[in-house]
C-alpha cells in the first residue's frame, strides 16, 4: 500500500508524460506480482464495487476525527472529495504498517463488503490508526469505489511493455477485460500479462475481446479524403459499442468500457454464431429502426430485466465488423474483405437479434452530403467513413487505416444559467456544474424559467473563473452545495439528441448537453423557450 500510495502521489503530482512513465516503471520493477496485478487493475481503470457505503465511511471518519458533522460537511464542501477530506481531517496515526496492496484488497477491504456496521467500524478505525494521510486517502478511495488515477491506459501499457520487453500491442490485447470485476487480479495473471509471446496466445485469450478500434472526428469537408470509392460508408448509431465473442462454446458481450455486459443483453448473448467468432457492432433498442438512446438507458438502469421490459425494449446487435472467424484473427485483413465475410456470416446466422449495418451508397461526396441530412430523421448521429483497405487498429490509431466519424452538427439552444454547484477534483471549490433553463408560460400565463439540462464542459479555465466569480456575486440562495443565481448569463447549449421524459421538469431530456459558448450578445429575455425545444423534438420524430 505504501508503494502504491507513493506511485499514486507521483502520478498525481506531475503532468509530464515522461515522469509518469518513469514512476510507473519504477513501481512495476519493484512490486511483487500479486501487488502489481492489483495495481494494473486500478491503473487500467478498474472500479471495484463500493465495499462500505459512503454514509458509514463518513460517520466513522467523523467519529475518529472528533468533529461535528456540520464541520466535516463544511470541510467536504471546501475539498470536494470525500477521501481527501477524510485524509486531511484525521489526526496523525499512532501505529504504522506496511501491508501489500493485494492483502489490503483481498483480506482487509474485500471482507468489509456486507459486514455489519459494528465490524466495519472496528476494522476501519484500526486501519485509520496505522496509515499516513496519503495512504488513508487511497484507503477511502479503494473502499468507496470511486478510485481514478490520472494516467492513460496507453501509458500503463507502455510501462509494462518496456519492463517486460514485449510488444505493447500484445500487452494491450492481453489487458482487455482485465478491469472487469468478475475476475480478481492474481499473481499468475500478472505474470501471464508480461510473459513473452507464446504460440498459445489465442487459446489463452479465453472470452476476452479485442481492443476496440476507435474513430476520429472528421474536421472539414470529406472531399479532402479523395475518391469516394475508397471509402465504406455507414450510418453512425447512438447505442452501446460492443463485441460479441463466441469461444469455448460460450458467448461473451463486452462494452467498449471493457465491462462484461452479457447478462444485461440476453438477446445479444443468445445470438448463435459459430465457435471462434468475434463481431464488433452497436447494441441498440430496435423498433423498425434505432430507438433513441433514452430507451437503451431504461434497460441499462435496471437490475433485473422483466419479460415485459424485454418485449417493450428489444435489443439487437447491429454488426459492422468481423474480427475473428473460425478462431482466426482477421484484424489485418482489409476492411472490405472483413465486410464481405461479415455479410455472409450475418446472412447465414439468420437471427433477428443480429442485423447488419447497411452500407450507404452514393455517386459523389455531394450526393452523400445530401443523404446525410436524413440523419436526424433516421435516428442516427451522422455517418462513419471507413477506408476500404483499413486494417482493424488498436484504439484511436491511424497507422493501419482510419475510421472517421462525420457527425451532424449538434442541436443548439440559448439557455439561462439558474443553478450552480461546485465541481470535484481539479474543479473543487469552483462553480463548474451548471443547470440551464428556458422560458415557458405557466398556467397563469406568466413567463417562467424551466430547467432543462445540466452541463459541465465546454468552457476554458479562464472562462470558468469568470463565470465562477459572477455566480458568487449573483447568488440568491444556497441549498447545501447548490446556489441559485440571479438569471443574468445566457449560454448556447449544444446537445446530440432529444427525447420525452417524465423525470425532468421540462418534460424533455437532452443527450450530451455541453456549453458551446457564452452569449454575451444576448440578454436573459432573448433566451429560447420550451416551445423551441418541443419543436426540435417533433422534428426529430417525424
Amino acid at each position: 500500500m505504501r508503494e502504491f500510495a507513493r506511485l499514486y502521489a507521483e502520478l498525481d503530482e506531475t503532468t509530464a508524460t515522461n515522469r509518469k512513465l518513469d514512476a510507473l516503471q519504477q513501481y512495476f520493477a519493484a512490486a511483487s506480482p500479486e501487488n502489481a496485478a492489483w495495481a494494473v487493475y486500478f491503473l487500467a481503470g478498474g472500479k471495484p464495487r463500493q465495499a462500505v457505503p459512503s454514509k458509514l465511511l463518513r460517520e466513522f471518519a467523523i467519529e475518529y476525527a472528533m468533529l461535528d458533522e456540520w464541520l466535516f460537511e463544511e470541510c467536504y464542501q471546501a475539498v470536494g472529495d470525500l477521501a481527501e477530506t477524510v485524509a486531511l481531517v484525521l489526526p496523525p496515526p499512532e501505529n504504522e504498517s506496511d501491508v501489500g496492496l493485494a492483502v489490503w484488497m483481498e483480506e482487509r477491504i474485500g471482507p468489509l463488503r456486507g459486514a455489519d456496521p459494528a465490524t466495519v467500524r472496528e476494522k476501519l478505525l484500526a486501519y485509520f490508526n496505522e496509515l499516513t494521510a496519503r495512504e488513508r486517502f487511497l484507503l477511502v478511495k479503494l473502499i468507496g469505489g470511486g478510485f481514478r488515477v490520472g494516467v492513460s491506459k496507453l501509458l500503463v501499457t507502455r510501462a509494462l511493455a518496456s519492463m517486460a520487453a514485449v510488444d505493447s500491442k500484445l500487452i494491450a490485447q492481453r489487458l482487455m477485460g482485465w478491469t472487469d470485476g468478475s475476475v480478481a487480479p492474481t499473481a499468475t495473471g500478472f505474470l501471464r500479462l508480461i510473459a513473452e509471446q507464446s504460440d498459445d496466445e489465442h487459446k489463452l485469450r479465453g472470452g476476452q475481446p479485442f481492443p476496440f478500434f476507435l474513430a476520429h472526428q472528421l474536421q472539414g469537408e470529406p472531399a479532402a479524403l479523395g475518391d469516394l470509392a475508397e471509402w465504406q460508408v455507414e450510418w453512425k448509431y447512438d447505442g452501446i459499442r460492443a463485441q460479441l465473442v463466441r469461444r469455448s462454446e460460450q458467448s461473451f458481450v463486452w462494452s467498449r468500457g471493457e465491462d462484461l455486459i452479457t447478462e444485461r443483453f440476453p438477446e445479444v448473448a443468445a445470438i448463435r454464431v459459430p465457435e471462434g467468432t468475434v463481431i464488433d457492432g452497436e447494441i441498440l433498442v430496435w423498433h423498425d429502426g434505432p430507438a433513441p438512446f433514452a430507451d437503451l438507458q431504461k434497460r441499462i438502469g435496471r437490475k433485473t430485466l422483466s419479460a415485459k421490459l424485454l418485449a417493450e425494449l428489444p435489443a439487437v446487435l447491429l454488426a459492422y465488423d468481423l474480427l475473428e472467424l473460425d478462431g482466426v484473427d482477421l484484424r489485418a485483413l482489409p476492411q472490405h474483405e472483413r465486410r464481405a465475410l461479415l455479410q455472409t456470416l450475418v446472412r447465414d446466422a439468420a437471427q433477428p437479434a443480429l442485423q447488419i449495418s447497411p452500407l450507404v451508397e452514393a455517386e459523389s461526396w455531394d450526393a452523400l452530403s445530401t443523404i446525410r441530412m436524413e440523419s436526424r430523421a433516421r435516428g442516427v448521429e451522422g455517418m462513419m467513413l471507413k477506408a476500404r483497405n483499413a486494417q482493424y487498429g488498436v484504439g484511436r490509431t491511424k497507422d493501419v487505416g482510419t475510421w472517421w466519424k462525420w457527425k451532424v452538427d449538434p442541436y443548439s439552444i440559448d439557455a439561462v444559467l439558474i443553478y450552480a454547484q461546485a465541481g470535484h477534483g481539479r474543479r473543487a471549490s469552483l462553480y463548474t456544474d451548471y443547470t440551464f433553463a428556458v422560458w415557458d408560460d405557466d398556467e397563469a400565463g406568466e413567463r417562467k424559467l424551466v430547467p432543462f439540462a445540466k452541463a459541465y464542459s465546454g468552457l476554458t479555465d479562464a472562462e470558468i473563473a469568470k463565470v465562477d466569480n459572477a455566480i458568487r456575486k449573483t447568488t440568491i440562495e444556497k441549498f447545501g452545495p447548490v446556489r441559485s443565481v440571479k438569471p443574468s448569463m445566457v449560454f448556447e447549449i449544444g446537445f446530440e439528441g432529444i427525447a420525452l421524459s417524465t423525470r425532468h421538469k421540462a418534460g424533455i431530456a437532452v443527450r450530451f448537453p455541453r456549453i458551446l459558448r457564452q452569449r454575451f450578445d444576448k440578454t436573459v429575455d432573448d433566451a429560447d423557450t420550451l416551445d423551441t425545444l418541443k419543436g426540435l423534438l417533433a422534428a426529430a420524430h417525424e
Partner: protein
Amino acid sequence: MGDMVVVRKEGLFCVPGNFYIDPWRPVDRAVITHAHGDHARVGHGHYLAAAPGVDILRSRLGEITIDGLAYGERITHNGVTISLHPAGHVLGSAQVRMECGGEVWVASGDYKVEPDATCAPFEPVRCDTFITESTFGLPIYRWQKQQEVFDDINAWWRKNAEQGRPSVVFAYSFGKAQRILSGLDASIGPIVCHGSVEPLNRVYRAGGVDLPPTVLVTDIDKAALKTAMVVAPPSASGSTWMRRFGDYSDSFASGWMLLRGARRRRGVDRGFVLSDHADWPGLMSAIQSTQAEKVIVTHGSIPTMVRWLCQQGYEAKGFDTEFGDEDESTAPEAKEMKESKKAAEETTPDAPEAADA
C-alpha cells in the same frame, strides 16, 4: 460600554481612540498591522506601525508620515493605550493591543503561530476581546513542520540540479519568498531572485534577517542556471521572463497547495504547503492563549469559525472586512484574475480603464 472596535465603511475603527486599524479607505490616523497590500494602503494622513516594518511600508507606499513603535512599547492616544506585539506573519507584522477603561482588545491582523527565522515569533497577548483572522479556518488545514517542507524543497532542488534542470518556486514577493530563502540549502546551487523579490530581500537583510546569497538573473552565467533555484512571484508564471530557464521544473509554495484540486489547477510540478497564516490548530491555540471571552472573526471562514467558537463557549461574531486580496488571504484563482488584469493594465497604459484606475 459598547464595542471598542467596530467596522465602518473606511475600515476597523477604534471608537474611543478615534483611529483606524488597516483601513481600506483614506483616513486621518491608521495603525497598520503589516505591509501586505490589503492591510496597508496609500492615502492616510498618519501611519503607526511596528518599528521593524517601517522600512517595508516606506518601500511599498512611498512618501508617508509614519511613526515606528518598538514591540511592547506603549503610547496613549485619546485615552487608549496602544502597543504592538509580534504576529509572526511577515517582517514587522504586529497585533494591535488597545486598553481603555480597564478593558483590553487585540486585533491580530494576519498571524502565524509556528516561529520562523524571518520575523519575530507570534506573542500571545492576554485580552478580553480578540479579533482574529480565519484564512485557513477549517480543520482540514494542518501544516507540516516547516523544516519538513524545507527538506522537501531542498531534496526536490537537489534532484533537479543533478538532472541539470533549474528549479522554480513561485511565492509571493514579500514574506513567503524570504521565508523560503531562509530555508534553502545554498550548497546545492546558486539562488536567483526575480526583480520584485530582491528589493525586499535587501530590506530583510538590513533588518538583521539572515538570508543566503541571492543574485538577479542578469548577474549570473547562463550555464550556472542549470543547478539554480529561482524564486519568483506567481505573476511571473507564463511570462517571457521565464523563457530563459528552458526546461525547468516548477513549484508553488502556499497553504492552498494542501488541496489536491488547487495543486492540479495550478498545474505546477510540485505544490509545497507553506503558509504565513495559522492553520486550524494554530488559530485555536492562539485564541485560547489570549484567554479572551469574546472573539471576532475576520476574513476567511467566518461563519464556520464563529459557529465552532460559539459551541466552544466563546461569545463569537464576525466582521466583514476588505482584507484578503494579497498574499495567500484569498484562494489563488480570484487573485490571479486580479493580477492578470493588473498586468494587462500595466502593459496598456493608454487604455481608458487604466487611466481611471
